[in-house]
């Protein structure tokens, strides 16, 4: 079916407000979802799970969370790694303290704990903006990592300082621990991402999303219209941290299995997440996914190319890969500052007019 708007008239406001207003786009989306949920689980192996799909899903969730705060509400944050750590440690403490609690609740509750912590660290945003706020969130990053190192209670006094996820099952199938099958961890993450992306879309298209964007675009005018700055900013911090905390919990329990805080949730994770939303597109749900895909898949692809195909030594390949990705980020910022999501929009506009561009 061709990509066309013609004959696809909107007669109600309801239809006009839907997520995929163009019919062919809607079909494409649901077809992709059908493949993701019904086909991929039958073919997934451990390599695709661990190197590609699960990290892609978890990082999409992180990027979504950060995009809500930075892209929609305009509050720059460099505390993402720290908030992921809060999610991970909340998950660990809940799993070990309440062994009977279903894992889905544990992950959601970890998001809830992170939302509380994130809201607290969001309080300064009422007074400080932009660069200064970024520095304040950077302090949060270091503070949180320090706290999880400093107090052995957080890692249950384990000798290594590591936290390790015990096995948990859903309907008898393991989803955490070394025995969890690839399809199960993949489906669990996919379900979380599917639901939370849908929620993010709903929040951003309605009253709350407009309040966030109003604060982002002109906070003084927003306040004069009746947007409460404190509540609005804190709600963005809360929702964003919920997403990042949920992702942190999955990252630890489903993906890593065992984690040491400095290594797993250091400052480079905060930067990675920020690059994702910038490259993908600030203030775009789709952009969060595109940015995460770019930064998760690109290293894998480059590594396969350099080490697999060209046979370079691993360390050389790693360095070149880091340089290349850095270069690509700069290139992107110059060529398309609005990110991959904007490129996609422009392509669609062209496609809509194709083959008669005028």
């Amino acid at each position, binding site marked *: 079916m061709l990509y066309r708007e013609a004959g696809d008239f909107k007669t109600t406001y309801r239809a006009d*407000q839907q997520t995929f207003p163009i019919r062919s786009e809607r079909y494409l989306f649901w077809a992709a979802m059908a493949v993701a949920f019904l086909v991929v689980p039958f073919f997934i192996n451990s390599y695709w799970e661990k190197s590609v799909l699960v990290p892609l899903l978890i990082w999409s969730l992180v990027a979504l969370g950060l995009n809500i705060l930075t892209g929609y509400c305009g509050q720059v944050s460099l505390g993402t790694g720290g908030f992921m750590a809060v999610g991970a440690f909340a998950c660990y403490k809940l799993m070990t303290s309440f062994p009977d609690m279903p894992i889905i609740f544990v992950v959601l509750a970890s998001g809830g704990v992170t939302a509380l912590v994130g809201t607290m660290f969001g309080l300064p945003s009422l007074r400080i903006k932009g660069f200064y706020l970024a520095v304040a969130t950077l302090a949060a990053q270091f503070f949180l990592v320090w706290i999880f190192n400093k107090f052995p209670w957080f890692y249950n006094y384990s000798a290594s300082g590591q936290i390790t996820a015990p096995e948990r099952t859903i309907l008898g199938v393991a989803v955490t621990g070394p025995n969890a099958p690839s399809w199960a961890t993949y489906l669990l993450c996919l379900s979380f991402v599917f639901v939370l992306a849908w929620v993010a879309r709903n929040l951003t298209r309605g009253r709350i999303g407009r309040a966030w*964007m109003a604060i*982002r675009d002109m906070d003084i*005018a*927003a306040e*004069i*219209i*009746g*947007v409460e*700055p404190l509540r609005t900013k804190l709600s963005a911090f809360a929702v964003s941290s919920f997403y990042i905390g949920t992702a942190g919990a999955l990252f630890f329990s489903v993906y890593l299995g065992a984690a040491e805080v400095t290594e797993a949730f250091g400052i480079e994770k905060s930067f990675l997440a920020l690059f994702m939303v910038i490259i993908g597109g600030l203030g775009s749900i789709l952009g969060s996914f595109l940015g995460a895909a770019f930064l998760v898949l690109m290293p894998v692809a480059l590594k396969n190319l350099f080490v697999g195909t060209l046979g370079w030594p691993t360390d050389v390949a790693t360095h070149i890969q880091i340089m290349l990705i850095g270069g690509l980020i700069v290139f992107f910022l110059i060529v398309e500052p609005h990110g991959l999501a904007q490129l996609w929009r422009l392509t669609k506009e062209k496609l809509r007019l194709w083959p008669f561009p005028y």
Partner: protein
Amino acid sequence: MNVHAARQGVFGAARSEDGIARGEPLLVVDNISLAFGGVKAITDVSFDIVKGEIRAIIGPNGAGKTSMLNVINGFYHPQQGTITFRGRSRRRMQPHEAAMQGIARTFQNIALFKGMTTLDNIMTGRITLMKRNMLWQALWHGPAEAEEIAHREAVERIIDFLEIEHIRKVPVGRLPYGLQKRVELGRALAAEPALLLLDEPMAGMNLEEKEDMSRFILDVNRDYGTTIALIEHDMGVVMDLSDRVVVLDYGRKIGDGTPDEVRNNQAVIDAYLGVAHD
């Protein structure tokens, strides 16, 4: 546009149950003084705005007109004096509280949300009228969507009224100046305000755009009974539109009355002709 449809919903009765009859004071400004460090922006100014009128605030550059609006909607806090709006007095309040009480405004320098579309900007104007909490919003289907559609209908009536249907989905940053001013008026109207503050809504417009804007202002006032305070430099416009005029000069009130009274007031003539202060 469909006046009857508009009458029922938008600009409707949502905020007018305050028991104040037409012609009675809606807003009383009493002895307001405001200074920034050593600069006295407003000195001992008192006036009122009665329900249903168009009240112009005029004066030379730097007279304190914008500062006055900023005091009225809680953006500046005066050192002295009180504001009584709909019978409730206050000295200090936050801008969003003023919005909740039914004061909406436009700005001298356009203050739209540049990254958002015309539609979203005007929808944001209804933020104080929308009630569904975050959980309903997260679910969307059901109450949140119903609320969104109801408000969308109201906003579409404003869009029709202001004749900006063609730019509904355009990010406002891309619009020409005159249209941005119109969208900003739409955003203020969307709040269904009891008092609408307009800070130089026609500045920088050509004659045709000014005529359109004048027509919108008169229609809002006549058809929906919205009380309006208007700052404007174009005397022709002021004389045509306003019921009463306050004149400020160097932060003081130097005239107050009907356009004719003000036009013949010697102090006002002096201020405008730049007669030296003693």
